[in-house]
């Protein structure tokens, strides 16, 4: 990874703001979709696609690219927006989100957007697929493969048992190229995670499963980049980064409100949100 300069951080803050604005525009146009998580993960997506990942938008099937699996497919507006801003497809296409015939399905479908590593939406399935990719890669390239494997998960999807089956296997197989990043935003459809189905002590759970753990502020670029660097330096075990994020980040009336988990802004709310975001950036 390159040196992270203050200048680059400032640039990424601007990029994340643009991506958030795209997310709002897409959701208003679609009339449905998931706002809170998408806005909350904009900084992490920006850091990954504009600094951390080894990838090439002009050659999306490059064999040596790092692999990123989005397990919680419902936050795809931020995924699509980041891909478009990186140059994978025209930004204008973002407005087709959730429409008939669009590449941008309501939840990501690889058949419609072939360079996605997988389809997702139903929760709890991404980590085990990432483990499988990592295992396959190790069979071909050995322990010191040039690739890194990232899996992005929501916090509430950790309520799915399949995630912990994957966590056990990753640890057993000592998958050192694997980094899971958890969007710890504390909300889910029906309320706060700790009310619906408590996850804490979350870090201790992952440690007990044999993972290297870190907790970071998911809006601090220095910490995001630093944590990924540390994760990659860990030998013989997989790493998890629990990223504390603010759901709805950047839009005051959405921030920390679980009601915005699965809701899109209407036109008026969208205008208000865009205005706030523009102001934030100024």
């Amino acid at each position, binding site marked *: 990874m390159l040196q992270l300069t203050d200048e680059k951080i400032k640039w990424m803050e601007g990029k994340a703001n643009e991506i958030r604005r795209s997310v709002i525009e897409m959701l208003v146009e679609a009339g449905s979709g998931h706002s809170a998580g998408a806005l909350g993960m904009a900084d992490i997506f920006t850091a990954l696609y504009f600094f951390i990942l080894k990838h090439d938008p002009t050659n999306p099937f490059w064999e040596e690219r790092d692999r990123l*699996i989005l397990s919680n497919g419902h936050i795809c507006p931020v995924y699509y927006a980041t891909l478009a801003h990186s140059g994978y497809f025209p930004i204008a296409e973002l407005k087709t989100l959730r429409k008939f015939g669009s590449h941008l399905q309501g939840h990501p*479908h*690889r*058949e419609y957007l072939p360079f996605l*590593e*997988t*389809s*997702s*939406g*139903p929760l709890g*399935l991404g980590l*085990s*697929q*990432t*483990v*499988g*990719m*990592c*295992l*396959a*890669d190790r*069979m*071909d390239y050995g322990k010191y493969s040039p690739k890194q494997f990232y899996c992005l998960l929501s916090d509430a999807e950790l309520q799915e*048992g*399949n995630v912990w*089956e*994957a966590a*056990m*296997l990753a640890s057993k*197989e000592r998958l050192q190229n694997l980094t899971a990043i958890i969007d710890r935003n504390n909300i889910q459809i029906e309320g706060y995670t700790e009310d619906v189905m408590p996850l804490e002590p979350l870090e201790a759970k992952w440690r007990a499963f044999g993972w290297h753990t870190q907790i970071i502020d998911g809006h601090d670029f220095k910490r995001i980049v630093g944590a990924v660097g540390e994760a990659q330096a860990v030998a013989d075990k997989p790493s998890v980064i629990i990223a504390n994020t603010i759901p709805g980040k950047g839009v005051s009336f959405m921030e920390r409100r679980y009601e915005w988990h699965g809701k899109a802004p209407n036109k008026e709310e969208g205008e208000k949100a865009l205005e706030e975001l523009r102001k934030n950036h100024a």
Partner: protein
Amino acid sequence: MLNHNLKLNIELFNEDVEKISTRVGFGEGLVIAADQNKNVVGLCADLTESTYMHLFARKYPERFIQVGVAEQNLVTVASGMAKMGKIPFAASYAMFSPGRNWEQIRTTIAYNDVPVKIVGSHAGVSVGADGGTHQALEDIALMRVLPNMIVLSPCDAIEAKKATIAAAAINKPVYIRLARDKTPVMTTAETPFEIGRAQVFYAPPMTPQAGIVATGALLHKALVAAQNFAARGIAIKVLNISSVRPLDFEAIKSLAKEAGAIVSVEEHQVVGGLGSAVAEVLAQNCPVPMELIGAHDKFGQSGTPAELIEHYGMGVSHIEAAVERVIKRK
């Protein structure tokens, strides 16, 4: 008489016909597929020996992943491996895979259209003593409704071996249904096998009065029934349908047109399995009277395979009775 063009086992009607379980054929086929292609890998959920994947695991330990008792993980990890260019065979008991992990298979394998091969052993009541929890009678139904999925249900160990090799060679998701019990060997190494193709195993010299379509080891009982009818001068034609999906529509239609009545035979619920699949074809193309042999809205239980096959109405006498019924309905 047996269709000699298919080079079937000429001893298949003998009392002492050789018996091998289909899972053994799978185990041997997987080793051959792995010899031919280094991308073939194996995953198992703590049932390596009973699924016969141990033959592969011993020869290629570096290509084998033991996931423990975790069938949801079994197929999703396999899906990830397929996306990196591997041809994963994921083995367990049919009751747990695809029984437990159907949505994982739908979302990560069928929806992504990646070439994972789901191997479900111990299908049917012939599992025996373990009882109803372990006797999958719904797996064909679960798998054949999935877009992109190929469903293979071989009739004997030799066909299971060929099905395994063919599954490895096709760039699609495949479900392979296997059984625990040792069952008669009906085919030989020379018998042709092709995904999507049904074969006439028993063809009488005159126009048949009824046709039997069978899948899995029960095909043997269908052949015995046809032979018994032949002794009474009643002509019955028997089709082996080891490829439940894609289904050989032409072979089924032509049998229905020729015989005018069909009996389906499977060790599976009659709802959703081979019988249903065949009925779908006939209802839309050439409706003829049909009788369905299989489990009728019941779970299995403990017993010997022979006792259970009889109890659930899948024995030779039941097939014969169904043939007589269907002929009367013509």
